[in-house]
């Protein structure tokens, strides 16, 4: 066998286990999920074909769907916008070589290593109405305790707060890396042109990291849209006080694993997929047009 054939054969063997795993655990589920979305199935009785009924019920007949969509949208916007703004500022602050900067960076990135579960439990303590740190501090200023996790609107606000706290380090890592790629000579030229530090940040640094910014936005939207761990542990498995934090991922979990309505849940999953795909494509289009000069 000639060498090329031998290498090709080795190639096939090398990818075989990996390919098998991807096929079994990714490709097959993808197809099977689509199949399930047009069935009614609860695992114990055989599935019955219902065509587009699941989708119809979901989109027109289910009040909870509307609530979940609204909550997910509020949560996504309420997470992504502050995350982007804050992480821009933090990255700008961390983008210098003064003494001790390494330590500050290490601390700022620390939340990356912490799991959503631990974050949620810890913040539950911080946000506790009677004994949480936040209400204690507000008490110093004479403000009455806020029902952070017990009142629906505040619960959503708290969820966004915690989600931002968790997402900023991640976004900062990416933005900082991009900022460090901006050539020093550009900053020097801007200094000679008379631009102060803030001016340089706004007119030079931020435009130069546009690509990374869009990337952060896209990834943050994808993550926020599907957020589950944080919501479940912070505000409970039924979507918080009076469905205040009832987001799409919770709805999916409920229908699939509490009600065992797999067909319906699969239909929901595909609707989420479609929305997410559209959002991502739109964002990519926008970013391409915006960053055409980079």
């Amino acid at each position, binding site marked *: 066998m000639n060498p090329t054939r031998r290498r090709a054969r080795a190639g096939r063997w090398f990818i075989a286990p990996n390919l098998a795993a991807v096929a079994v655990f990714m490709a097959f589920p993808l197809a099977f999920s689509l199949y399930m979305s047009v069935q009614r199935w609860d695992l114990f009785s055989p599935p019955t074909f219902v065509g587009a009924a699941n989708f119809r019920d979901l989109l027109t007949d289910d009040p909870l769907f509307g609530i979940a969509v609204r909550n997910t949208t509020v949560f996504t916007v309420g997470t992504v916008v502050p995350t982007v703004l804050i992480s821009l500022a933090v990255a700008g602050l961390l983008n210098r070589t003064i003494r001790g900067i390494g330590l500050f960076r290490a601390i700022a990135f620390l939340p990356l290593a912490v799991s959503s579960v631990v974050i949620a439990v810890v913040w539950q303590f911080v946000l506790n109405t009677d004994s949480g740190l936040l209400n204690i501090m507000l008490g110093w200023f004479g403000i009455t305790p806020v029902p952070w996790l017990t009142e629906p609107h505040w619960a959503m606000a708290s969820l966004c707060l915690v989600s931002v706290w968790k997402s900023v380090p991640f976004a900062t890592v990416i933005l900082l890396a991009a900022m460090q790629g901006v050539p020093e000579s550009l900053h020097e030229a801007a*200094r*000679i042109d008379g631009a102060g530090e803030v001016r340089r940040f706004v007119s030079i640094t931020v435009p*130069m990291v546009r690509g990374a910014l869009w990337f952060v936005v896209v990834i943050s939207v994808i993550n926020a849209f599907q957020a589950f761990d944080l919501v479940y542990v912070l505000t409970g498995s039924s979507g918080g006080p009076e469905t205040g934090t009832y987001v799409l991922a919770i709805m999916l979990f409920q229908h699939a694993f509490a009600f065992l309505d797999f067909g319906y849940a699969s239909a929901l999953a595909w609707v989420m997929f479609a929305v997410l795909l559209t959002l991502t494509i739109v964002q990519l289009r926008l970013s391409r047009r915006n960053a055409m000069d980079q």
Partner: protein
Amino acid sequence: MASVTFDSVTRRYPGADRPALDALNLSIDDGEFMVLVGPSGCGKTTTLRMLAGLEPVDAGRIHIGSTDVTETDPGARDLAMVFQNYALYPHMTVAQNMGFALKVAKVPKAEIRTRVLEAAQLLGLQAHLQRRPKDLSGGERQRVAMGRAIVRRPQVFLMDEPLSNLDAMLRVQTRNQIAELQRRLGITTVYVTHDQVEAMTMGDRVAVLRDGVLQQCAPPRELYRKPANVFVAGFIGSPAMNLFTVPVVDGAVSVGGYALALPPEISAAAAELTVGIRPEQLQIADRGIGVEVEFVEELGADTYLYGRTVDRPAPQSVVARVPGGTEIQRRSRLSLHLDAADLHFFTTDGARLG
């Protein structure tokens, strides 16, 4: 008044054994084109950057006009700089690049437009104003960098090897354009280069630096005719000046078997000298320095001879430039004649005598 004065300016990088710039004293007149030249590491770029405010000054003061700018922010010094790699803002158009500093200074939009157009016309950039740097050629980008500096009408222009990224032909063309532009605008210019041809052709005066120390600052002609030390003598002029280290015997020195009489004040000064003569000042004749030719480069208009003197036991290298067309064989022996007035004398430490 936009003169520039360096007063014992020193810069030492942490951990370095010698200062990058050691007590530089230099004064540049208003409207003068001053070239800083020297091999890499000599401190010329450091000097420029200290003048720009991009490097801190460890000792000494810098003045622009009568104002002490040693502690001033770069943006407040009223100077403009052309960087070696141009440092154009990639996300802005040519017009925006050129107008940026004016925008920062809150100059009214109409005036920005006028001044940008004016500079663009001066440099032939009118057609490119709405384009982005990535769509321009190297030469065009260089002109935009110049335009950005001109638009500001600063007190001083700083240029950091602006021609080094251009190809050879473009370099000659642009060299002349820059010199012409500076003459027209009359703005004090400090220009850094490692190329002594640029230095000689562009500067009103040239400051030669080596290892952080100023060797000589003089008009090009004087650098050529009266180099202050051996380093300057060897740096200026291409090919480099021939330098022979010889003992003084009876008021004369002998190179390649040829006796050169010394003026009395020189022969009295030392027992050993370095004697210099430029390759272009040697001619083939019947009597002169005995040389054995090792190889010949024929360039058409000129021919360069590389060889060794016939001195034993230590022959010294010789380079001579003779008119093209002269037939020379390798391994032939010749005599090279010179005019005593063209000789340069240096002590063995390198300092000029006479």
